[in-house]
């Protein structure tokens, strides 16, 4: 039964993702001739169509897919763990942890790189893990009687606190650095090369391995820690694994695309609306739908105001904000 439903979910969301993946690289502010782009007889250095396709658009689509999948699955895990529909990378302060890291790299280590990768994504990754370590410490306190609402409140406070640190660093920075940091905070998927994508794939793959073991425990944890331990689940261990996986995937996503909002909060809700609450279906569904959603948003960002582009974070917020409010109203009714 579950196998069949899983097959339907994967086939449904998968074909939507494939459709978006096939369309997105073809559309853009300029027309690209596919026959020319794939014509091997033209040297790559002379083939503008091929370069637009392979250098400008394909990395963006792949980047958007990875970031979307990473944020959406992390949102699913956070919401299940905290048994709270508002839990997401941005509400737990994780995105802001990444932002603090990126700000420090932009203003204090300008122009540095490690092994050919700019320090900005590396620092963003470290920052998101740092913020999650704080969330994790709070969640440990929870097992001694702290409710998930308190943990979420802790996340909100952490977000505000880290936001103030971001402001402080921006305040110290000079004008051009401030300009760059503001731009970074809006999110961008124009990754420019495959290097950052490969770098982000490592933590994402690790997170994927973690996720594979999670669905059953998440289902039980959603029922409450007592119910879960009654069925023989080591709750503390399961939570630890879930948090580490979600941190890796958030860190990788934010370091690649910046703190793109609303994907981690809206996509899990939409997917649960479509497939129900079984995490064996929700997790793969959110990964596929999150990827497709962000590719579509980035397509909108690239084409809506061509020839200029919108920061993708603005597009996800404009779509995600009203959708989320609509979901809230629906629950109230």
């Amino acid at each position, binding site marked *: 039964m579950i196998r069949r439903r899983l097959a339907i979910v994967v086939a449904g969301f998968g074909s939507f993702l494939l459709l978006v993946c096939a369309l997105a690289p073809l559309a*853009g*502010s*300029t027309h690209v001739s596919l026959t020319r782009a794939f014509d091997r007889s033209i040297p*790559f*250095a*002379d*083939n*503008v169509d091929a*370069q*637009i396709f392979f*250098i*400008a*658009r394909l990395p963006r689509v792949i980047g958007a897919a990875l970031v979307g999948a990473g944020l959406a699955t992390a949102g699913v895990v956070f919401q299940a763990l905290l048994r709270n529909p508002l839990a997401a990378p941005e509400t737990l302060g994780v995105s802001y942890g990444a932002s603090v890291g990126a700000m420090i790299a*932009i203003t204090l280590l*300008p*122009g*540095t*790189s490690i092994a*050919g990768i*700019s320090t*900005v994504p590396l620092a963003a990754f470290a920052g998101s893990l740092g913020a999650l370590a704080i969330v994790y410490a709070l969640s440990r306190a929870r097992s001694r009687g702290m409710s998930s609402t308190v943990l979420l409140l802790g996340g909100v406070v952490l977000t505000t606190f880290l936001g103030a640190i971001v402001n402080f660093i921006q*305040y110290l920075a*000079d*004008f*051009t650095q401030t*300009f*760059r940091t503001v*731009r*970074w905070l809006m999110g*961008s998927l*124009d*990754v*420019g*090369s495959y290097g*950052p994508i490969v770098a982000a794939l490592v933590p994402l793959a690790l997170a994927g391995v973690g996720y594979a073991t999670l669905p059953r425990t998440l289902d039980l944890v959603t029922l409450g820690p007592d119910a879960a331990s009654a069925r023989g689940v080591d709750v503390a261990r399961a939570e630890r694994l879930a948090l580490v996986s979600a941190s890796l995937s958030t860190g990788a996503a934010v370091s690649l695309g910046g703190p793109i909002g609303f994907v981690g909060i809206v996509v899990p809700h939409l997917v649960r609306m479509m497939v129900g609450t079984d995490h064996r279906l929700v997790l793969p569904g959110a990964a596929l739908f999150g990827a497709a959603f962000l590719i579509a948003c980035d397509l909108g960002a*690239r084409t809506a105001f061509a*020839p*200029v*582009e919108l*920061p993708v974070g603005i597009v996800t917020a404009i779509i995600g904000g009203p959708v989320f409010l609509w979901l809230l109203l629906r629950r109230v009714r």
Partner: protein
Amino acid sequence: MKRLAILIVALVVPAFRPAPADAPKRIVSLIPAVTEMIFAMHEDSRLVGVSNYDRFPPGVEKIDRVGGLLDPNVEKILSLKPDLVIVYATQQELQTRLERAKIPFYSYEHRGLPDITQTVRAVGARIGSTAAANRLADQMDANLDAIRRSTAALPKPKTMVVFGREPGSLRHVNASGGYGFLHDMLVIAGGVDVFDAVKKQSVDASNEMILVRAPEVIIELRYGEPMKAADIEREIRVWDALPSVPAVRAHRVYILTGDEFVVPGPRIVEATRRFAETLHPKTR
């Protein structure tokens, strides 16, 4: 006729007088470009406060700092007892407070290149050194005209002026659009802005946009910290990721360093000349 003569005398004579008695004697300038203008008019002895971002010319470091665009230090400004404060037009709150303290201020806005010499004249008139200001402005206009004439007959390469990006990568590339002094400087220096049609001071240039616009020359501006030659070389090679761009193929990606490119003051002439020399190496 007699009235006209009086009018002419009234208009012209003040220009040849030294600073009138009621001219401001204690000036605070929050704008680096205006600070440079006042130095170039040799009126810097009257400057008692400058912004945190003033680095030029030599001598400016001895003057008290009073904050910047976003964080003017009102207490510090008041304590300097200025009789003229030069503020950005957008610093509304500061202006209200200065009004309340009955301190006159001059509101500055920066737009295109022609506005720079206009500002020189207006500031000069405001601080009572019209003659020096007009001399400076005339000289700047003449020098810019000379650059314009020297490049007029030359081919005009399609150029992208980049004033910011993530170091070591081609992410978050900020290029000059078809508006503002960087754009005007490029036109005088004999180039065509690839983003001419986008009437904004700054364009977020994605890799796709750069590939499509295909600039023949890329001029990247770096200011602030000085750069080592090896770093410049490495940052130029970052552009090799876009091999079909004519500027990359013809090895015409340049990194120019110095803050004269971002301070729209008297040094803008020298900055424009460096643009021209970069675009047309033979005119050197």
